Every structure is written in C-alpha cells, then in structure tokens.
C-alpha cells in the first residue's frame, strides 16, 4: 500500500514537472512570439504528442519565427528547408556521394539531408513539387528515410513543422490528401490584435533582443508524450470522439446535414487519434489525469479542419470546413446532454 501511495506520489510529481516544463516552453516561445498563445500552445501540444504540424497563414505573421523559437527553447537539432519548385527529394532526404578512400578506392557514403534532425521546418511546403513533398511522407509517418535500398531511422524525437501560404497560389502545388492527413494539427495563424502589434513593435525594433532559453530537451518531450498517453479517457468521452468523426462521413447515417451536402470525404481515423492524443496532452497540461469533453472540443478543429475534403458544391457556396465543424460540434450530443 505504501509502495502504491509512493508510486502515485511519484507519478503526481512527474505530472507536475511535465506541466511546468510545458508551461516554460510556452513562456520561452512567448518571448519571441507576441500573442498567438493558442497557436503556441497547440504547437507545443503537437510536439509532446509526437505529431506534425501544418501552420497556415499569410506572410509576416511569425510562422517561421515560431518554429525557430521552439527549436531554441527545446534542446533539439533544428533544420530548416525552404521549399521551392526546383527542390529535389534528395535535397531533403540526402543522397549517396562518392568518397575517395585512403586506400585509393572509391565508395558511396550516405550524406544525410536536412530531414535528419529532431525539428524540421518545411517552410512554404506547397511551393515544392509533389515528388519532393512526397519525400517527407515516409519521414513524417514512419520516422525513417529510404535511400538506395537503405533505410535510415530518424532519431527521436522527430517533428515536421510545415508552413504554407494561403495566398499567392500561382506556381504552388497543394499538398495531396495523403500527406495532409499526416499532419496532426493544422493551425491557422491570424493577424495580431492592435495590442499585440504594438508589443511586437516594441520588442523587435529596439536595441535589446529577447533571448530564448533552453528549458527542455528532446528526451523531456518524449517522456512528456509517454506520460500523456497514460492519461485516462472514459468510454463516454471516447464515444464522443467517435461520434464527431462519424459525423464527418457523408455516407454515415449519423452524418450532419452539412456534411451530406458539402463533404466529399470525411475525416480518417488519424483524426480521432489526433484528437484523443491532443486531448490527453491538454489534460496533462491542465493538471488532470483524465480527458474531458472540452479537451476533445479544443482539439477537434485543428485536428479535423484539414481532413475534411469538401466537394464542388461547397466551393460554389463558399462554405469552409470550419463552418461544417462548428455545426458538427454544436449538434453532436455528449453523454449527459
């Protein structure tokens, strides 16, 4: 009994530590990124949950800066790939190069690409060709890279944070559905408020530049992720996740009316996994040991908005995925309703 109590206390202490570390990461990033607390928090949540993040927003909103700040706040190997139309897959994964040996023989040696890092920033990912974009698929999902019949395992933790610009669509290549589905969250960065904008000016145009301190390591992130997976989720809360995902399937009897009208393909099981994992992290950061409905609802939009494939009618009626998700969240009943 004493052991159990001690074990529980140790677990409780761990939970407190992880909560404090996550809060510290958010605070450190917040030194560079003014406002956008929700975006920062969701990005950290994805890091803890081990998911990839797609960040969308117009230029100049600090998307890239956010990822760079994360790289500095956490002791991780950080690499940045600027996606351009002429970028080749090998520029990402790396390639075999011929090396002259000391004995005069020439051998092939694998030269790792920028994907071999813990935190990869894929900037403006939709400007590269699909072939190059696909080079990231295996790394994002399998955490490995295959080059010339050789498989290279990526060191954990491994995160891909991609940004894309919703405007200037000329010469871009929208991400294929299979690749979009591999992003745990899609976060939409909006313009800062007037107060935030003033704060940005104060911080970035003065002589003193804010310094970001490392407050966590990659191992910490992995431990936090492992702990978050232990957070309890009750059956009725799990059923709510299932109901939400089923509501996005147009052929399902429980589908929402807007889903039937505007959705071509609904969310995959990855959406449900993303919601539950993110909800567990939310609960952990909130000092709880169980997932609540509100955690699920907080994770629902970023986890599902990029997984809804709308039909032509939705495009004609200018219906956005957010509107459909709002309707689904409003109408899906929770246990006890």
């Amino acid at each position, binding site marked *: 009994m004493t052991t*159990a109590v001690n*074990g*529980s206390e140790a*677990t*409780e202490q761990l*939970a407190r530590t992880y909560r404090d570390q996550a809060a510290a990461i958010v605070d450190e990033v917040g030194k560079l990124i003014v406002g956008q607390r929700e975006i920062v928090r969701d990005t950290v949540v994805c890091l803890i949950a081990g998911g990839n993040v797609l960040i969308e927003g117009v230029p100049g909103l600090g998307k890239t800066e956010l990822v760079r700040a994360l790289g500095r706040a956490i002791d991780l190997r950080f690499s940045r790939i600027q996606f351009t139309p002429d970028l080749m897959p090998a520029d990402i994964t790396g390639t075999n190069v011929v090396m002259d040996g000391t004995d005069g023989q020439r051998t092939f040696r694998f030269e790792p690409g920028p994907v071999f890092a813990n935190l990869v920033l894929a900037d403006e990912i939709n400007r590269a060709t699909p072939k190059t974009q696909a080079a990231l698929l295996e790394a994002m999902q399998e955490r490995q890279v295959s080059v010339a019949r050789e498989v290279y395992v990526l060191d954990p933790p491994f995160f891909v944070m991609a940004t894309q610009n919703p405007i200037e669509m000329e010469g871009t290549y929208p991400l294929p559905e299979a690749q979009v589905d591999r992003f745990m969250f899609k976060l939409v960065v909006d313009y800062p408020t007037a107060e935030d904008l003033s704060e940005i000016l104060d911080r970035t145009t003065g002589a003193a530049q804010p310094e970001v301190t490392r407050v966590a390591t990659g191992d910490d992130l992995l431990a936090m992720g492992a702990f978050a997976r*232990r*957070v*309890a*989720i*009750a*059956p*009725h*809360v799990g059923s709510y996740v299932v109901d939400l995902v089923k509501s996005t399937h147009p052929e399902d009897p429980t589908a929402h009316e807007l889903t039937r009208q505007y959705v071509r393909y609904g969310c995959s099981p990855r959406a449900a996994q993303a919601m539950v994992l993110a909800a567990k992290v939310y*609960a952990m950061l*909130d000092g*709880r*040991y*169980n*997932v*609540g*409905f*509100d*955690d699920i609802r907080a994770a629902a939009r970023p986890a599902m908005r990029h997984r809804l494939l709308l039909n032509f009618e939705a495009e004609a009626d200018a219906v956005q995925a957010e509107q459909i998700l709002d309707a689904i969240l409003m109408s899906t009943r929770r*246990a*006890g309703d």
Partner: protein
Amino acid sequence: MRFELAPLIPRGGSWPAFRATAYGPDAFGQRLIPLARRWQRHRTLLSAPRVLTINFGLALLVVLGASALGLPRFVSVLVLGMAVIPVVALVGRALVAPPPLAAALAYDRRLAMFERLSTAVAGSRADDRMRELQRRDAFEALEAVNPSLAFPYRVPRGDLGVVAVAAAALALGMLAATADVLPRLGAPAPASALAESLGSAADGAAPALADPAVLAQIDQIRAAMAELERQRDPDAAPAALAAEAAGEALRRTAEGRRLGRALDSGDFQAAAGEARELGEQISGMNSTRMDELADGLREASERAEGLDEGLANQLRAAAEALEAGRLADARSALSQLAQEIETAGATVQADRGLEAQLDQLARQLAEAESLGGEGLPGAEGDSLGDAAAAAAAAATEGSAEGTTGSEGGGDSVASGQALEGTLETLAPEQRLNVDGQLEIVEIKPTEEGAEVIERPVLELGPGGSSGFEASAGDRGFAVGRPDVARNVPLDMLPMLDRYFSEP
C-alpha cells in the same frame, strides 16, 4: 445497474439513502450518494411543473368532457384520482437513486469539472496508478462540491407561471368533478334544468358584452325552444279553440250550460263529467228541452267543425240522436263525447305544459339577450322581445290578438298569452292590458300607412275633449282611449309615459 428506493425511515440516525451496490463501497462512491440524491430531487423539481401542468390540464379536459357527455360524476372523480398517479410517480422518482454515471455527469457538467467524476465512475483503460491518481483527483473535487449551491431546490422563475397554471387546472378539475357547477356543454339538457342553470347565471354579475358564455346560453335557449316547439302537438291549439267555441254555443242552452261553461273555461275533466251526467239525465228531459239541447249540440258541432273533427262529429251524433228521439244512441253519443273531450283535454294539457316551459325559456332568452347587449351574432331581427313574443305567440297561436292604439298613428298588434308581471319588471315591449295582464306588443305599421293627424300634446283624445282634462300631472296621455280607464292608477304612469306621451 440496480435502482433502490431510499428508506423512508433513517436507519441508525443517518440517511444511508442508497445501498452501495451501484455506487461502490469506497469513499468516492459513498460521497457521491448524497450528491446524486440531491441532483435527482433537483431535476424532479424542475420537471414537476410541466408534468403536473400537462397532467392536470388533461384531467381537466377529461372532466369537462365527461360533464359535457353527461357521464356520471364518479367518472370525473375517478379521472381526477388518476391524475394523482403522476404526482406519486414524481415523488417516487425523487426517492429513487439515479445511475451513478448520470449523477456524476450532471455534476461534471454543472461545475465544469472536465469529466473528473464521470471518468472515476465509468473507469478507463489507463494503468492502475493513473486510475488511482485520477480517482483521488476526482474525490478531492467531489469533496469540494456544495450540492445545495450546485442544484438548489428552487423552481426557476420562468416556471412559476407553469406552476400557477397547474394549480389552476387542478382547482378547476376538482371543482368540476365535485361541485358540477360547470354547464353540461353540448348535452341536450332538459328545459327546466337549463332554465335553472341560466337563472342562476343571470343572478350573478352581468357578463361583458358579447360574452361567449352568454352567447352559448342564448344558443342553448334557442335550441331548447326549438326542441319544445317541435314536441308540441299541432292539434292541441285547434282542439282548445274548438272546445271554447263549442262551450260558448252550449252555454246558451239550459241543459247544456254547465257543460258549456266547463268547455269554455278549458276544464276538460269537468266537461267530460258533465257530458256523462247529461247522458244520464236525457231520459228525464221533456221534448222541448231535448230539442233545445239538440240545437245547442248541433250549433256547437258546427262551431267545432274545421277545428276538431272528432269533437264536432260526436257533438253532431249526439244532436242527431236527440233529434231522432233515440235516447240510447244519444246516451251513447254523449258518453263517447265525454271520452273525446278527455282525449282533447289530455292533448291540450300536455301542450300547455310545453307552452309554460316555452314561456319560461322566452323570459330567460330575453334576460340573456339584454345581458349580452346589442351586436350579438344572430340577434338582429330576432332580439329580445321578438324572441320571447315569437315563443309566446307560437304557444298561444294568437289567442289574444287584436288591434290597439288605433289613434296612435299606426296599428299595434298585441299578441301572446297573459303573463304574470309587475310594472317595475316590464321590458320596453311589454305592457299591462286593461285586465291587468301582461302583453307583449309588436309594432306593425300597416302597409298603406295610417293617417297622421297633428295634435298638440295636451289635446290628445277624441275631438272636442278639453286639453285640461284632469289627469295625473297633465301628462297628455291618451285621454279617452277605449282601452285606458280615465282614472289611471299612479303605478301605470311610467308605462303610459313610455308609450303615449309622444304625439
């Protein structure tokens, strides 16, 4: 899940309301019990107003329906008794333990506890250590809960109106079921009962103009009057007239005087007795008296002809037998005449009963229409006195019809049966005739129009009469009118003033 009733009597001084079967014996489960009980009572209280309103409202409708259909009162009482069942069910629901998960979810939702309690109740697939932590966290949250603040025993202000409606429905239902004061709507009520109910209604406060209740009463009266009119025997009035006419002829004969008076006064029972007695006296009559009686019977027969053929035939048969000197036939004919008179008497008597009811309804109709005021649907052209006069006229078939007021510039037709009344209660269309009886007057100008003679107010009356006739205050009433005595009682002045003070 097993539900158990809370014990009504505390055991051991505490209220272990629910056993630990569903809630678990640990501290968390036991702590949840009073909270669950509180929530159960709270939600029962919230749902009670609407449930009771629907319940009592339906019961009231059923009770009213039963009353309208004339079902026995015990049916209404039974329905009202059945309406208590949902109340008992509500009380029972408040005592029954809710499912622990439902109670936990309710508190989670109410206090924004992020499903701490419901997760602890429902369990999860987390490892033991995490589950223990979660349950401890939930228990700490549970201990901080103040159930009286979370779920107070208070009916929302918006539901107070619903509570009032439920109470009103219950009160009305009980009143309708026990006192039976509500009218039996739609039922073919007897005229007497209808008159009583309407009378009691008329005694109360006057309803508003075009009150639906008054309109309904008027419709009921009219329906009852039509029904009574339908039940009347069309031969009754001619039979009465025939008897009257025959009696008038027989009164002139020495032997038939008593029979004639009885017939003339409408006492058919006495007339039948007189006819039988006359038959027994025939053998003692001399020829002169016999001839006189035969003449009287024949004249009576002729007068009754066309009105009551049966009576006329028997009178004729008796007259012929007497003229022929066939005493046995004459005795037999007078005996049959007696039977015929009894038959006619029964018919006339039944008709008079219906007529009396019609008169009563006509008065009720006049009262109801005066309460309802003008503008009542269907009242135009058939208002107040007209309806009563029509009913009375239908009852008497012009038994007192004649022209009056010939000097008033138009013909007035007074018709109807003499009614009991006083001057204070007279309606504008009513007056007392010279016999002190009530008449209902219909003003019916002649088609060709009457000659209009301009006269000063004080010179009314036959030509040459003085404008300074001694009268009650020189009011210029119809001095010298044949139907008005010179010495008019003072209590008739209002009526005279009403009808005859204008040229």
